[in-house]
């Protein structure tokens, strides 16, 4: 079975109590291999998931989620138009 993170789903439940991803445009900063992204992306309108770790973002990109755009870049390098996302999610990255 190997390493298993948050199989109880506590993280997503906590997020669900404070934010709705439904039909939202999300920028996720520090997506890593998409552990969290994979849990909410199906609800969002679109997700731009960024992380500087090449290996990690390749793993997420390999999932080929239709509404997720993966970029290998850090928080300082992301360049999106003003007022273009509804949620900026710092995923264990602040």
């Amino acid at each position, binding site marked *: 079975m190997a*390493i*298993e993170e*948050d199989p109880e789903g*506590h993280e997503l439940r*906590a997020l669900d109590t404070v934010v709705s991803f439904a039909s939202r445009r999300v920028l996720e900063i520090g997506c890593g291999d998409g552990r969290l992204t994979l849990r909410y992306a199906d609800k969002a309108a679109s997700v731009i998931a960024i992380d500087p770790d090449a290996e990690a973002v390749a793993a997420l990109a390999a999932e080929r989620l239709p509404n997720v755009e993966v970029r290998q870049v850090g928080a300082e390098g992301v360049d999106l138009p003003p007022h273009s*996302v509804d949620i*900026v999610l710092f*995923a264990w990255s602040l």
Partner: protein
Amino acid sequence: MVDALRRALGMLTLDGIVVDVHPTAAASAIEVEAEITGYVEACDAPLRHAAAGAALAAVVGQGLFAIDQAVEFTFYTYGDTIEELRNYVQENWNDARLDDATVSRTRDALRRSRGARPRSRERVVVTTLRRGRA
């Protein structure tokens, strides 16, 4: 960190929100079921977590954001063995390690609790912030 929050503000819609997820400064425990067998030695973790909290406080203090909600939860990471969990923590967490005494106590606890898996327990806080008045 404050710069990253400032940049987020520019990309957000006027009614958009920032969601921050980060561990608290509380020590991460190693457990077998409900029994604590030790703690992760993480040299800089409390400082990094405190810095994240300070960054949030700074942007709130500057009026850029206002805290909307905050909730804490427990995040468990399980391994099949304590050796596997130790390797994972040491390879994936910054400057973190499990000492031999913790590993030994965990092995003993696993022998007493057949079928149980060792786990780390972190306390994590989710904070949402909305655009402030500044």
